[in-house]
C-alpha cells in the first residue's frame, strides 16, 4: 500500500532506484533537494553511488554540454542545474545542440539527458531567482518538458525520464512543492510522458494547471465548490508530448476554461495551451479563456510585492467565477 512522502523524498527515491537499476545513469550538479529529510536520504545515495555523481565547477554551459555529449555516447545523465535562471547560461548547449542533434543527424544520434531545475516564485528569490523558463523550453522542438505537481507524479516521471526516454527532457520542480507530502505507490513504476491526469472531476469549468498551480487549482476548486461551482482540474503533467485529447475532452464537457501556469503571461505556457484550445475546442467554449499567470514584471523581492504577482488559488477562483456567473 502507498506510503506518504514529500515531493523531494519521491525524487530522491526515484534517483536511488534508477542508480541501482541502470549503470548508465549519472548525476551531474546539485543534489535535487536542499532541505528536509530528503537531504539525508540523498546523502546516503552519495555514499553508495558517489562514483557516478559529479560536482562540477560553476560552469553551466560546460557541464550541461558535457551531459549532452555523454548522453550521445550512451550514458543517461541527470543534471541538477539548481535555480532555473542558471540554466540560461547553458541554453546554447541545451537548445542549439542537445535539442537538435537527433534531428540534425537524420535520426541517428539520441540524447537521453535530463535537465532538472527549480522554477518559479520561491519566496524571496527576487528578480534573478524566480525564473519560469518553461515556455521557452516548450517552444523548443526536440526537448521534452515535464512539470510534476505531486510526489507520485514526480517519482514516476523522473523514472521515465531517466530509464525510458530517448530524448532530452527538461524537468521542472517548484521550490514550493518540494515539501508537499502525498501518497506514493509502492515499488518501481513509471508514468509515461504524454498522459494528462484529471486531478479532480467537475462539470462547470475546466482548470488546466501545471506544476505548483495544480495544488492551487485544487484549493480553488474546493472554494468554488462551496459556492456551488463544480470545477474540473486537469494536469497535463508533460507539455511535450502533450495529451491534447484529455484537455479537449474536459473543455467539451464544461464549456469553460481557465489555464494557469506560474510563468510570465506573454507567451506563457498558459498562453500556449489557451491558443491550442481556442482553435481545437472553440466549438465547445461558452466563455472567454482566462489565464492566471505572473504579470509582465520581474518578480520583486519584498513580501507584499511578491505575493501580489503570485498566481494564487484566490486568483484562480476569481477567474473561474468570472466565467461561470
Amino acid at each position, binding site marked *: 500500500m502507498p506510503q506518504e512522502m514529500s515531493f523531494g523524498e519521491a525524487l530522491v527515491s526515484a534517483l536511488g532506484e534508477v542508480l541501482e537499476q541502470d549503470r548508465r545513469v549519472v548525476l551531474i550538479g546539485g543534489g535535487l533537494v536542499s532541505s528536509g529529510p530528503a537531504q539525508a536520504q540523498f546523502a546516503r545515495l552519495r555514499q553508495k553511488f558517489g562514483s557516478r555523481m559529479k560536482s562540477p565547477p560553476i560552469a553551466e554551459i560546460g557541464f550541461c554540454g558535457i551531459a549532452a555529449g555523454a548522453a550521445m555516447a550512451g550514458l543517461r545523465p541527470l543534471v541538477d542545474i539548481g535555480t532555473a535562471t542558471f540554466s540560461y547560461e547553458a541554453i546554447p548547449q541545451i537548445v542549439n545542440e542537445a535539442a537538435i542533434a537527433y534531428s540534425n543527424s537524420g535520426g541517428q544520434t539520441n540524447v537521453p539527458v535530463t535537465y532538472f531545475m527549480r522554477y518559479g516564485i520561491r519566496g524571496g528569490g*527576487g528578480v534573478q531567482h524566480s525564473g519560469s523558463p518553461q515556455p521557452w523550453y516548450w517552444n523548443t522542438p526536440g526537448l521534452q518538458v515535464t512539470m510534476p505537481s505531486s510526489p507520485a507524479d514526480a517519482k514516476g516521471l523522473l523514472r521515465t525520464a531517466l530509464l525510458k526516454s530517448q530524448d532530452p527532457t527538461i524537468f521542472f520542480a517548484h521550490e514550493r512543492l518540494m515539501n508537499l507530502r502525498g501518497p506514493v505507490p509502492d515499488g518501481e513504476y513509471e508514468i509515461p510522458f504524454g498522459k494528462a491526469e484529471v486531478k479532480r472531476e467537475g462539470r462547470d469549468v475546466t482548470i488546466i494547471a501545471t506544476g505548483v498551480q495544480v495544488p492551487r487549482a485544487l484549493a480553488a476548486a474546493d472554494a468554488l465548490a462551496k459556492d456551488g461551482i463544480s470545477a474540473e482540474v486537469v494536469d497535463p503533467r508533460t507539455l511535450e508530448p502533450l495529451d491534447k485529447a484529455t484537455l479537449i475532452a474536459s473543455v467539451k464537457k464544461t464549456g469553460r476554461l481557465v489555464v494557469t501556469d506560474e510563468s510570465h503571461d506573454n507567451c506563457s505556457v498558459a498562453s500556449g495551451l489557451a491558443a491550442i484550445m481556442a482553435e481545437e475546442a472553440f466549438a465547445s467554449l461558452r466563455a472567454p479563456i482566462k489565464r492566471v499567470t505572473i504579470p509582465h514584471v520581474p518578480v520583486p*523581492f*519584498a513580501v507584499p510585492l511578491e505575493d501580489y504577482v503570485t498566481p494564487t488559488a484566490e486568483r484562480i477562483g476569481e477567474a473561474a467565477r468570472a466565467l461561470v456567473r
Partner: protein
Amino acid sequence: MLPEIPREKQLGILQRMLMIRRAEEHVIRFNEDYEGLIRGHFHVYIGQEATGVAVCEALQKDDFVFSTHRNHGHVIAKGGDPGKVLAEIIGRETGYCRGRAGTFHVAAPDLKIIHTSAIVGGCLALAAGTAFASQVQETRAVSVVFFGDGAMEEGVFYESLNIAKLWQLPLIFLMENNYRRAGHSGSSHSAKELSNVPRALNVETTVVDGGDVGAMYKTTSELVQRIRAGEGPFFVEAQTHPWPGNDTTHPKLVAGKTDIKWAWDPSPVPENVRSWYAEGDPVFIFARELVKSGGVSREEIERIDAEVRKQADEAARFAVESPLPEPKAALNFAYAGRGN
C-alpha cells in the same frame, strides 16, 4: 600595514569596517530572531571588510563599483547608508531599491553602484561596459568589479577579461578569494594559481593579502592612478581568511556578536573558532595596527565601535520599522518608458 593617509581617514576606514560588521550582525540576527524577516538564503561580508573598504577608499565618488550576492559590505564601503541597506535586505520601501532587490542585489545608483547581480559572474561584463562608456565619454571614471573566486569558473569571466584587455578598458577586476564557493568549500579550478588565468590573457595581475588594509589600499590606489593616466585593465586577487560563521547559506554568529575587546584578548572567544578572531579577523588586525603604529588608543577604538554600534542599532530599528511597499506597486518599474 597602515595606509599612508591622514589619521582621520584611517579612522574612517576602521569606522566603515566596523559598520559592515555591526550591520551584518543585525542581518544575521534578523534571520535568527525574527521569523520570516529574511526569506531564502543570504550572504554576509564578515571577514572581508578590509578589502571592500580599502578599495573604495582609493576610489572617487564617480567611480563605478559592481558587486555580487555578497554585496552588503561593498555598498557600505562605498559610503552606503546602513539603514537603507538593512531596509533593502528585508524588502522595505525605504531600502536602496524600494524593496525590490533584497539581500541578493542591493544596488545604490547614487553611489555609482548602479546594478548588482547575484548571478555568479553577472557583473563582470557590465563593469567592462561602464568602463567602455567612460572611455567613449572620455571621463576619468574607473570601474571596479568585485567578484569571488568561484566566478572565475564561469565563461563570462574569460570573455570579459579578454575584451577588457583588447579594448584597454579602465577597469579593475577585483577577485576576492575567500577559498569558498558560497556554502561549499574550495574553488574548483584547474589552474595552479587562479592568477595564472589573467596573466595568460596578458592582464597585469597583483596578488594581495585582502585582510591587510594598507596593502589593499596601496595596490588599489596605484592602479587607480595608472588607469586615470590611461592604462588598464588590471586584475587584483585579494586573499582573505574565510570567516567560520560564513560557511553556510544561512550565516551564524558562531562567536556571538563581535566584542571589540577580543582584538586585545581573544580568550573569551569559543575555542573552535578562536583562531580566526585571534589571527584572521581583518577588523581586529587593523585595530591592532592603529594602536601599534597609528598612535590610536584602545579606548578611542572602543569609543568608535560603541558609536558605530549605536548607529547600526538605529539603522536596524529604522529598517524593521520601515513600511513594506504597497502591494499594487508590484506592477511598477517594469519599464522606464512607462513612467513608473
